[in-house]
């Protein structure tokens, strides 16, 4: 399931809900991306999505990941709008029979979400606001999966 939300969300509550009733799931990997304060350099983060387009693109990618890694299930929640330092930006959880698949699928989903998902990101800092492009590190992380 995929959710885009303008409201802050609580990763622990999502993990609790995701783990319930999984008698045959041995492994749940999860990831929480938090807005860093950057020692006051990043006052606030603004994330724009295109509702109906962004969530559909995430869903397509997540279903492909589910097939690739034989996942039992996944859960993705992504903030949009203004995000304060310390708040959660993204939560991804993956459920699988064994831990290797759960970890790799979670990592795979995060690399794509951080570098290629249809969001537009603006940082409001002391020097004003600027739109962000993916970092080289994000591109490298995401491209790790391309050769396989």
């Amino acid at each position, binding site marked *: 399931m995929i959710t885009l939300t303008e409201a802050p969300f609580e990763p622990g509550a999502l993990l609790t809900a995701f783990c319930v009733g999984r008698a045959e799931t041995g492994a749940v990997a999860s990831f929480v*991306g938090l807005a860093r304060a950057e020692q006051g350099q990043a006052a606030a983060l603004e*994330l*724009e999505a*295109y509702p*109906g*387009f962004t969530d*559909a693109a995430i869903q397509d990618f997540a279903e492909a990941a589910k097939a690739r890694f034989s996942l039992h299930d996944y859960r993705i929640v*992504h903030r949009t709008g203004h995000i304060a330092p310390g708040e959660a*930006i*993204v939560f991804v959880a993956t459920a699988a029979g064994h831990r290797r698949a759960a970890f790799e699928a979670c990592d795979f989903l995060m690399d*794509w*979400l*951080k*570098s*290629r*998902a*249809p*969001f*537009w*990101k*603006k940082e409001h800092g002391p020097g004003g606001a600027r*739109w*962000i*492009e*993916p970092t080289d590190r*994000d591109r490298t992380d995401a491209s790790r999966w391309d050769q396989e």
Partner: protein
Amino acid sequence: MARVLLFGRLADQAGWRDRAIEAMSLSALRAVIAGDDPDLAEALSGPGVQVAVDKTVVRGEAALLASTEVAFLPPMSGG
């Protein structure tokens, strides 16, 4: 009347993010925008800007019906 949506830096540049524009095709839409704001029209054709028609990315020309949604998407940053 196509519904035109701008995202990211394109909306900042234009000063709007959602506008109804009368046009029968994407090229006609670009011409209308160019008459109103030449700098914006140039940005909409800039490198890495994708166009989605009713939430599907298209390349090249597309016919626009009434209530078609046209979105201009600058390079995506990821989340």
